[in-house]
């Protein structure tokens, strides 16, 4: 294999203009599958959530899930789309072992939602991204290759299929091509997927977890010479399963395509796969020899004609868009744009909101989520929401601090216990004996002991060197394992030694 020297990114964007496009698949969080009554729980034993319909057994027929249609319309409305007055499903025909019927019931030329847009903010600038269509389809099953070293089909001795996922409703959201973003193309792609994820989460129709595959993204990228008008050949990068990867994949593909074009080569229209470990893309099958899907209207289903009154009702009931919602919260919390951005980036908006709702101040809630907890989430590489603390627990912790029962240091220890699942902050405080000691009797004893043990220091203080009191405070803190309130200790020392503070 020859090594190609890749051009630097700045150089690429100086000479080429990218056009990107995104196709996002979202698994809906409906209780049952798209065309049958099977449950959709994630992670169940293989092939336990199946029936004749989702297994495609001879004679079985699909019946559409109204909840899935409703969720799709709501997504379309939230993306400013028009909802079709009349549309239908089509069959996308191709052979694949994990697709029970060897055709996917999807939508083709008559999607449920068309022609919308989504505004996203990149570096303080708004970019309007056109939405081509939002449609509904069914997911396939999953193939597992066993017996080989890599888990891939090469070298495997057997292939097993799990059809639990087959038939789960899947919404596909396709953008119009996005030209004119220049060097920001990777950031725009990332910002779009982030915003889309937030919108879908706010609609409460999917848990949109990229790492679990409930939100999956394909990124189309092409380059044309700077100042050009004729778009280049695009590639479709699949397997992009984190926000960071969306950004990296666009960037990597721009650099790779520039390198090919620089060498006088031609970009092949093909599917590529993003490699998480190396950050580059590798070719899949070529689109030039791609399957002819032989789409035709699904004859097993009658066309859909969503009642306009129903659509209007759904539109009126849409939640506040996350961007508007965030702006409102920012004002309420009194945060700068930069502070708010770090809250958003940490995925802490809803957590902080819920913590405030549970009784904490905005500053208090933000402090714990963005401090201790965000640090832990980062270290463990998990979502903040999965770190092990609930908004109610954080609110309780802050309340204990406000009441003077915990100081900062003790509160951190309590939080450790919360994350470790030891119980509520109050329970942990009691169980671990972490409450601030403010009982003057017990503290006086400790202070007297410290004075007796350090006669030199005591003498200095009596002589008026008040600053020396710090050494005695330290000794008392040590003796009380940090549970004393430092301010009270200092006052006690000065008063026992007859010195004004």
């Amino acid at each position, binding site marked *: 294999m020859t090594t190609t020297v890749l051009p630097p990114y700045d150089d690429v964007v100086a000479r080429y203009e990218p056009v990107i496009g995104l196709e996002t698949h979202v698994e809906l969080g409906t209780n049952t599958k798209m065309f049958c009554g099977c449950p959709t729980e994630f992670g169940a034993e293989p092939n336990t959530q199946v029936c*004749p319909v989702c*297994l*495609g*057994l*001879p*004679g*079985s*027929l*699909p*019946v*559409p899930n109204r909840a899935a249609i409703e969720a799709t319309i709501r997504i379309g409305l939230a993306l400013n789309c028009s909802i079709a007055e009349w549309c239908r499903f089509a*069959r996308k*025909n191709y*052979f694949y*072992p994990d697709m*029970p*019927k*060897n*055709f996917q019931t999807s939508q083709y030329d008559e999607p449920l939602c068309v022609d919308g847009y989504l505004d996203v903010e990149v570096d303080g600038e708004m970019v309007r991204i056109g939405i081509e269509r939002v449609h509904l389809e069914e997911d396939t099953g999953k193939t597992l290759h066993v017996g080989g070293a890599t888990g891939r089909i090469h070298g495997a001795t057997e*292939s097993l*299929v799990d059809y639990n996922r087959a038939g789960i409703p899947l919404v596909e959201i396709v953008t119009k091509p996005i030209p004119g973003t220049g060097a920001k193309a990777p950031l725009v792609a990332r910002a779009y997927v982030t915003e889309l994820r937030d919108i879908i989460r706010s609609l409460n129709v999917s848990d949109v977890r990229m790492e679990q595959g409930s939100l999956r993204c394909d990124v189309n990228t092409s380059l044309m010479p700077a100042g050009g008008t004729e778009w280049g050949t695009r590639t479709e990068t699949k397997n992009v399963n984190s926000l960071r990867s969306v950004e990296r994949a666009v960037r990597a593909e721009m650099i790779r395509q520039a390198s090919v074009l620089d060498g006088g080569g031609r970009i092949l229209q093909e599917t590529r796969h993003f490699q998480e470990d190396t950050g580059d893309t590798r070719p899949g099958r070529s689109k030039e020899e791609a399957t*002819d899907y*032989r*789409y*035709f209207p699904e*004859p*097993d*289903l*009658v066309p859909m004609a969503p009642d306009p009154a129903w659509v209007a009702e759904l539109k009126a009931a849409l939640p506040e868009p996350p961007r508007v919602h965030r702006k409102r919260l920012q004002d309420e919390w009194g945060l700068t744009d930069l502070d708010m951005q770090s809250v958003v980036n940490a995925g802490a908006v809803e957590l902080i909101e819920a913590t405030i709702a549970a009784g904490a101040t905005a500053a208090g809630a933000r402090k714990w989520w963005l401090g201790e907890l965000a640090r832990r989430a980062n270290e463990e590489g998990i979502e903040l929401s999965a770190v092990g603390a609930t908004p109610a627990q954080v609110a309780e912790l802050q309340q204990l601090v406000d009441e003077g029962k915990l100081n900062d240091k003790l509160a951190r220890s309590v939080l450790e216990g919360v994350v470790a699942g030891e119980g509520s902050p109050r329970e942990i405080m009691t169980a671990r004996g972490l409450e601030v000691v403010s009982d003057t009797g017990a503290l006086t004893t400790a202070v007297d002991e410290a004075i007796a043990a350090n006669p030199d220091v005591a003498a200095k203080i009596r002589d008026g060197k008040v600053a020396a009191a710090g050494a005695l405070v330290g000794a008392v803190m040590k003796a009380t394992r940090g549970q004393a309130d430092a301010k009270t200790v200092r006052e006690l020392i000065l008063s026992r030694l007859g010195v004004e503070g």
Partner: protein
Amino acid sequence: MSDLTKLTAAELAATIASGDVSAVEVAQAHLDRIAAVDERVHAFLHVDTEGALAAARDVDARRANGEELGPLAGVPVAVKDVLATKGVPTTAASKILQGWRPPYDATIVERLRAAGTVMLGKTNMDEFAMGSSTEYSAYGPTNNPWDLGRIPGGSGGGSAAAIAAYEAPLAIGTDTGGSIRQPGAVTGTVGAKPTYGGTSRYGLIAFSSSLDTPGPCARTVHDAALLHSVIAGHDPRDSTSIPQPVPDVVAAARLGATGDLTGVRIGLVTEFNGEGAEPGVMAAYRDSIEALTKLGAEVVEISCPHFQYALPAYYLIAPSECSSNLARFDGVRFGLRTGDDGKHSLEEVMSLTREAGFGPEVKRRIILGTYALSSGYYDAYYGQAQKVRTLITRDFTTAFEQVDVLVSPTTPFVAFPFGSRTGDPYQMYLADLFTIPTNLYGGPAISVPCGLSEGLPVGLQIMAPTMADDRMYRVAAALESTVGVLTPPAL
């Protein structure tokens, strides 16, 4: 007891209900008849002796308990092997499903069981219902009880022959382009295709989803209506099923049996003027028109100019849908698997399985449909055929503004000898010339015996508007009241 097999379904039900005979005796009589003649007729692919007797015993027990029984309780019925029957082999007469036992019942089978009918077994058919002679069954053809050297029609030849041979009083067929009516006509029995969506397709192994319609086969119009009323009605598991009440076809059949058709307007399709049809068939057809006129019907000619394009449109739509519907037969999850020896890739296993499992007519139609749907040809073929379908529907709608029903011969020719058309697919496709327009439109149609030509039965087809199934039963019963029920020569 052997004459139990000569009784109609209505008579059998009455006899069982009165306690004169038990359901078990009735079932046994038919099982005995099958044992005696089916080696020559080959109407059945699978006889479910145990299941039939168990169901019959259940009916007898319920009767003994004083439970109210349905109008067909204890009556035997044969089911075309294209409907899923739980635990009972279901093959669609294809090698690719040899030995498959579905884990579920088709809705129609459920309804048959709930009504207390006794399922005798599964009847022979053209593979995946593709054919007009039952010669394309992977398990060998069915022979016409009228002449064992001739075809029994197709694809439901097994169901029609079982009835004509007195192996069962009732049978279920499925009609995609005429597969209930055409075998009915050539075996001298009654076969009705209900309104599309009037009977559930859930559990019917799909050939062409937008056309497939399950329906009744019987020896009398009244029996067909009784069976129709048991199996029809909305099914929430089939989204194309019509959520409307079923017309009272039994009452319509009784009304027709009085022989009075006063006030009924019957349309003759101008374009079905006899071209391509045998003279004997046309003679029997004209005789039946005269008979209907004598019963008081008013007869007028109606032009349906697009009917001439029905056959080509059908032979694009049906194969297109079948190419997609049959894609699930790939050896991955059920049925036959060939080439799984560790030396072949997954794609090769799929390909070898389909090569070994499908017969020639199925392959021909899959190839036709794959071609018609391919991206460069979709508009020219599938798209164009759908437009024709719309025009044919319009012809029907216009016609039914002027008449109550349309009539035509069911088939252009009587039962032909084996092998006489298998060499020329187009000649075979012509067998469904008169029946296909109704499938494209979706309305109901029935074939009722209307006479003989060269000693073989001829059928009259009566077509009605969608959800007006009762009209055709009335006219069919009236014709039956003058022509009578045909009796085949003894086997």
